[in-house]
């Protein structure tokens, strides 16, 4: 009985942590900045690929095949540290060049432009490195199994991912609650003109929070990427669609909502899969989203109504 309980909890947390990890960066931008950033999938994608090239020397396809193998070969640990930092930098650039000019545009416009950017990035990566999948050749400490209670074996890396997801979430909460910048962002989301008038440089705060969101996307790429294969399409199929669902079901603007929705999705997915099949599990996820939004159109923890 204990065995089954551990198994089930592990499965739910495994799936949920991936859902949450890919959604957090998007939730931050959408929630704090009211900016629909579908290019979040591109950031995740870049994170996953960058991790490969920092950690290893890769034999690639596509245009870059001529210079194969490519990579720094600094090892997986180095990649884990460097990728979020790199994505943070990219996030800053992205915020200044793309997000800032679009803040005043309608959400629909933001959605479409960032969608276009996502596909452009996806295509660039596909043409440069080929459309085939790559796997992370993880070192011993990051792979293999751990046994729990002597009987069940769990995927060691996924356990790390669960733990790391919890840690990063706590960090995020702390940032919002206890730092000045976090406060500025929360206030700025309410009324950015007022905050500017009070002398607080909201623009700066927005840029920072966007970059943090990007760093999270990159972190997601290098944490979740190794569980699956890395190919150009994961930006949409594995990241964007689940992230969008989780964020809106959880309610825009609420990190708590994103987390709860992620757990809910994980629970539903694992349960339906156990009772029926994998396809029904997918149907279950989408149905859950539709059902929740029918009952509460702004999401579980969403505001009473949303203004564009």
């Amino acid at each position, binding site marked *: 009985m204990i065995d089954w309980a551990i198994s089930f909890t592990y499965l739910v947390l495994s799936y949920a942590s991936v859902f949450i990890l890919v959604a957090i960066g998007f939730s931050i931008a959408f929630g704090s900045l009211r900016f629909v950033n579908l290019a979040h999938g591109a950031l995740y994608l870049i994170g996953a690929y960058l991790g490969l090239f920092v950690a290893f020397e890769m034999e690639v396809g596509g245009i870059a095949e001529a210079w194969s193998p490519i990579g720094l070969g600094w090892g997986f640990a180095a990649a884990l540290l460097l990728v979020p930092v790199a994505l943070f930098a990219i996030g800053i650039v992205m915020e200044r060049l793309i997000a800032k000019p679009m803040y005043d545009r309608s959400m629909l416009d933001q959605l479409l432009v960032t969608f276009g950017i996502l596909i452009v990035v996806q295509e660039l990566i596909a043409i440069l490195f080929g459309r085939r*999948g790559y*796997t992370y050749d993880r070192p011993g400490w990051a792979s293999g199994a751990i046994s729990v209670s002597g009987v069940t074996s769990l995927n060691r890396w996924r356990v790390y991912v669960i733990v790391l997801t919890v840690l990063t979430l706590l960090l995020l909460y702390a940032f919002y609650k206890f730092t000045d910048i976090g406060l500025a962002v929360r206030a700025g989301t309410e009324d950015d003109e007022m905050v500017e008038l009070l002398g607080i440089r909201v623009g700066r705060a927005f840029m920072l929070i966007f970059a943090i969101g990007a760093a999270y996307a990159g972190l997601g790429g290098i944490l979740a990427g190794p569980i*699956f294969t890395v190919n150009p399409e994961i930006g949409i199929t594995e990241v964007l669609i689940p992230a969008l669902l989780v964020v809106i079901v959880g309610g825009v603007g609420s990190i708590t909502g994103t987390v709860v929705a992620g757990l809910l999705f994980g629970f539903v997915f694992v349960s339906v899969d156990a009772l029926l099949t994998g*396809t029904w*599990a997918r149907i279950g996820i989408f149905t859950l989203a539709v059902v929740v939004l029918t009952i509460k159109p702004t999401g579980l923890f969403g505001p009473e109504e949303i203004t564009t």
Partner: protein
Amino acid sequence: MAGCAGDQEQPLGNYPIDGDTVGYGFNGPLSGILAADGEQQRDGFELAIDHLNNGGGLVDHIDDLSGDGVLDYEVEGYTGDTEGDENVATDTLERMIDRDEIMFFTGGISSSVEVASIPIAADNHVVHGAVFSHTGEITGTDCGPYTFRSAMSARTSAEALAEVLPELFGEDQEFFQIYLDYAYGQSNRDHMQALMEDEGWTQVGTSAIAYGETDHETQINDLASEEPDVLVFTSMGDAMASGLSQLADRGFEDLDVVVPLLSAFSMEPAGEAAEGVVGTANWHPSGGTDWSDDFTEAFEDEYGYTPGQAAMEVYDACLHYSAAVEENGSFHPEEVAETLETFEWEYAMGEMGYRECDHQATRPAYVVEGVDEETYEDTGIWLDLVEEIPGSETEYSCDEEPASNCEMPARED
């Protein structure tokens, strides 16, 4: 050869042929994740056209083929990139039939594309050389009057595996099946269950994963609770690769794994994780008849890399179609199709022959095994040959599934 002059002259499809050249079409994935195999297929196609027109390779060994075109026509090769998508594929195919007036087409990896091509071939009276695609339906429920599959069907592979697996892994083994949750995966699960249980193995459980899903955690969990000796994993491409890696991460790297059809687009992303995985392929360069080496040599000379089943299948298809045309004496599609229905040949892959009931070729299956990264870097091939199983042992009768599901339509005008 004079035959029924009246019938031969009836226009049908793109027959009779205008001018001195005859069109052969290649319709396969030259972009997208299947491109790894698709591009190799295209190379095999172009080599075949070259040899048919100018001699060389296996054309030199085949009596029926002159090496100077086919029936005094020069063969012109046309290519279409299906992108692995049925909508695109049917368009490119129709383009080749309309504008390029092809008499024959081959190529393709994706089974849904293959299935979508069957009615187009039938409606336009163009001979369709189905290669690679494994799914039973091509010579089962969806069988077509102009479609001939020279590659293994899922059943062919299963029969071969049933022969070899007890030798490789032992008698009385307990096996678990993880399979893709749609028709192909489901029918493969059924074949493997029936055939392995006949060999004395016991199936201890099955678990289905959604098509397109890469997270196998729940399926592995199901497997873990049953503790099998062998896993039969009906999957492909990136899903297969992630599944194997996730298996290793749950401590199952020593589990014996069987994947029914192994090819480049599945092996590439899998890397190390695919070492030791057993499956089947349509051909392997170190096996086959004496002619295998001639083909490999000609291919390596032209393209600088070692060919695999993808190139071989397409090359073979072009050649045996041409030989059937020569035997018939004209390109008339209905007559050529009739000739093909009882056609037998033995080029590089072994003894092969079609049958009337479902147009499935009875043919050898090559049981192969994934190699480790070092060996791959040396040889450039992902697979090692374990054993060749001849057609006599892989065939299944017209009364058994999937053949029994085939109600072969008549060739209409």
